[in-house]
Structures are given as C-alpha cells and as structure tokens.
C-alpha cells in the first residue's frame, strides 16, 4: 500500500521569512497568540528535522511540507492526495515534539483497520494521524484540524512516551529543561563544556559572566560582562545578552538582543517580545528600550532553507502529484527528500 507523508507547519509561517511581519506593541494583550514559530530551534534543534528522521525510519524517501496551512489549505491538500491515488497518508502537524515510533503507530492503524488513527497522549491530540484513502477523501471534504473525524476519536493511538507541545511557551520551556537534564532524547546542539552546560560554535562569554547549568548557549551568541545565564536557560543562536542581565529558567529565541541589567525569569523572549510562562502575560521590550530583534545580513533566522537544493525541490517538475499547480494555497509546497 502506498504511504505518503505530509507535514504541515501551523500558523502564519513560511519557509522564507519567519515572523518578520510580527507586529510589535503586543503589550496591550494579556494573552496574545504564540509569538514564535514551531520552526524556531529548541536547544539548537529543529523539531521538523526530528519528525523527518522518524518518517525516514519508516522507509520513506520523501515527504511533503506545507506551511501556513489553515483548514482550507489542508482540505485542498488532502483532496489532492486522494485524487492522486495515495492510499494511506501520514499527516503531521508540526505542533509537538514526540518521541514516537511511527512504525508502531502504523502497526496499530493496520491492526485496528481504522480508516483514521489519531495519536494522542494524556494532554490530547499530538497532531499526528494516519488516514486511509476513503477517510482521506471524506476528511478532505470537511477537514478541521481541531476536530478530527469521529473514527479517530473512538480508536485513538494512545502514546505514552515523551511528548511536548511546542506551540505552548510553557511546554516548550519544559522541553528545554528535559533536554538539558537528559529527561528526553533531545540533546542540545553544541559542545558540552562542563556538566549540563552546552555551547554552540562561535559563542563569546565574558570572563565575568556566569553560566550556571543546566544551560545551553547557541552558536555565535555573545554574553557580556556580569551577565548570568542559567540555570535552566536556553539562549539560542545569534543572541546578545548585555552586561549584568540574568536569563534564568527562560529561553531567548534566535537573534534576540537583551539590554543591560535585566532579569528574565520564567520567560520566553523573541526579539522585542517577552512572554511570561507563569502569568501568560506578554510585554513589549522594544518600546521600553529593553530588547529587540537583531537584524543581520544573511540572517540564519530561517532554520530550513527553501532554496532548491539536492535535498529539497520545488515547482511543478518536482511534484509527482502536481500539487503545486492545482493548489490554491498561498504558500508553495515542498517535496523533501529524506
């Protein structure tokens, strides 16, 4: 039976400019939408890559990627897959990190003869499902990612392994802590310089700065005099933490500048935007002169290059099911060789 895999990156993402258009001044909103992308690195890792590795272990050689796919776009995508004769489709919405054995999910799906199998854990759906062709056709007619077909609810695949929702700032920070302490399989991307402290390439830490493990400092980040990083901190790549600032139990996403003398505790900072993990409150650091996005020439903010390469192709010629030309979605779809 032909199996396809389709990964949807939720939200307003695209592969060419992640959140460049994110408005500032969110301070007025107590609970703004998640200000970061599911493609933003976690301890230097790309969660999409981890799912791609799992798909590859199923013996598949390629998968499809779509970004910014809302319900409408997903509907048209699934309809197209059904039309093109895909008999079974693995759909992954990139909203969680789960150490899931997809072969086990597939086995469960086949044994139960479910038309649809939705993976879930104690916290609910994980955004991973398998659809057989009839279900694919039916689902395509009325696809709602938040409201899966009733068959999948009746016979869900109960996942009991490690999983975290990466669109939730709090769970994301929990994943950071678990990665730093070895409570999950994700390892920080860098060199371990001492117990529970990892740094990426090109990191500069002032001699008077303190790094308290467990902590991760991403590539090319600068930590200035008197700053304190950790414990349970992740400062991702290309950040600058200015003099005397403390980053504790928090994450700074790539290209973030933090001004001098600040205390970032239990927070997630993305450029000039800060979300408190406990209160759910968000504040605009930029207008207060406390933080900002560092704009760099040739920024590596895009963790996944859209440019056609040996591994990744785009356009009609590369699309076996002619999805790009028939799709009405604004974002192009990519076929990625695994």
């Amino acid at each position, binding site marked *: 039976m032909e199996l396809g895999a389709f990964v949807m990156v939720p939200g307003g993402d695209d592969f060419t400019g992640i959140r460049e258009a994110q408005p500032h001044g969110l301070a007025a909103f107590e609970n703004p939408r998640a200000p970061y992308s599911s493609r933003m690195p976690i301890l230097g890792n790309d969660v999409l890559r981890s799912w791609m590795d799992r798909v590859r272990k199923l013996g598949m050689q390629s998968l499809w990627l779509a970004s910014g796919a809302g319900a409408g776009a997903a509907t048209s995508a699934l309809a197209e897959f059904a039309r093109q004769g895909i008999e079974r489709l693995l759909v992954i919405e990139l909203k969680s990190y789960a150490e899931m054995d997809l072969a086990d999910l597939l086995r469960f799906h086949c044994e139960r003869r479910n038309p649809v199998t939705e993976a879930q854990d104690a916290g609910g759906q994980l955004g991973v499902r398998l659809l057989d062709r009839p279900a694919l056709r039916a689902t395509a007619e009325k696809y709602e990612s938040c409201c899966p077909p009733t068959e999948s609810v009746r016979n869900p695949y109960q996942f009991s392994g490690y999983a975290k929702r990466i669109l939730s700032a709090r769970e994301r920070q929990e994943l950071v802590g678990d990665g730093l302490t070895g409570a999950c399989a994700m390892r920080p991307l860098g060199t371990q310089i001492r117990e529970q402290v990892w740094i990426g390439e090109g990191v500069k830490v002032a001699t008077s700065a303190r790094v308290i493990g467990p902590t991760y400092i991403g590539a090319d980040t600068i930590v200035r005099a008197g700053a304190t990083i950790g414990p349970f901190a992740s400062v991702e790549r290309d950040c600058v933490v200015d003099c005397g600032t403390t980053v504790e139990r928090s994450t700074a996403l790539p290209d973030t500048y933090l001004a001098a003398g*600040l205390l970032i505790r239990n927070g997630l900072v993305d450029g000039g935007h800060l979300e408190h993990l406990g209160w759910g409150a968000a504040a605009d650091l930029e207008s207060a002169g406390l933080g900002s996005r560092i704009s760099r020439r040739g920024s590596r903010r895009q963790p996944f290059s859209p440019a056609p390469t040996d591994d990744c192709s785009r356009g009609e010629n590369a699309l076996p099911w002619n999805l790009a030309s028939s799709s009405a979605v604004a974002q192009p779809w990519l076929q990625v060789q695994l």
Partner: protein
Amino acid sequence: MKDRAMNGAAWRILPFPSASSSASRRAQRKDLLSALRVSESPVIVDFSECRSLTFEDIDLLLECLGQAAGRDTQVVFVAGSNANRLLLEVTRISSLAPVFISVEEVLAHPQVAARCDAADRACEDRACEDRANDHQGASQSQTLWSA
C-alpha cells in the same frame, strides 16, 4: 492627585504621566516628582493608564524611587496590567517597591496594610517617645530650674 484612607493611614495616589502631548507629559512628570518630594503620606504611583511603558516611563519610575528613598516615604506602584507588571519585574523595579494591579489591590493587601499599620504605630510610638522626652526634659528642666 487623590487621597485614600486605609486603617487610619492616608495614601496619596499620584497619577503617572499619560497625556498624549509631550508638553503635557512633561508637566505631569514635574507634578508627580514635586508631589513625591513633599508628600508625607505613603504614596501610590498609578500608571494603570499607560498601556505600554516606554524607556522614558521606566526612567521616571526609577526617579520616583530615588525621590522616595531619599525621604524614606513608602511607595507602591499600580501597574494596571500584567504586561506593565512584567516590565517592572524585568527591570528589577519590582524588587525595590511593591507592584500591584489596581489601587484596590494595594489597599486590600495585608502586608501593605501591616506595613502601614507598623508605620502608624512607629509614628505613634515616636510621638509618645517625643512627648515623654519632652515631659522628661520639661521635668529635668523644671528640676534644673527648681535646683
């Protein structure tokens, strides 16, 4: 500027500059700092009208703290929103003065009330002591005078 009484103590509520024109803001800023300079009651600096704080606002809050510290006046801040409160935590201002969401929260807060009562008691004690000293002094002087 308003005064609110709680447990016998009068709190002076000072509004934070929130006018749209810079001239008015400058005037409000001047009023705030002069009021802080002369206030003998505990002070609530209320910036709940500010939707988001700018770096100038943060400078002014620090200046308020400086004024109050110089005079040993109790100051609390009313942030109005968790976003503003978060900025005060990030700038470490919240470690220098208590921060509340609303004026009602300040007045209902037992610790502030206790501090206020303690301040009142301290004032009363000082007054009693002063009276006693005055009395003793008067006695002494009287004694001296008698001698």
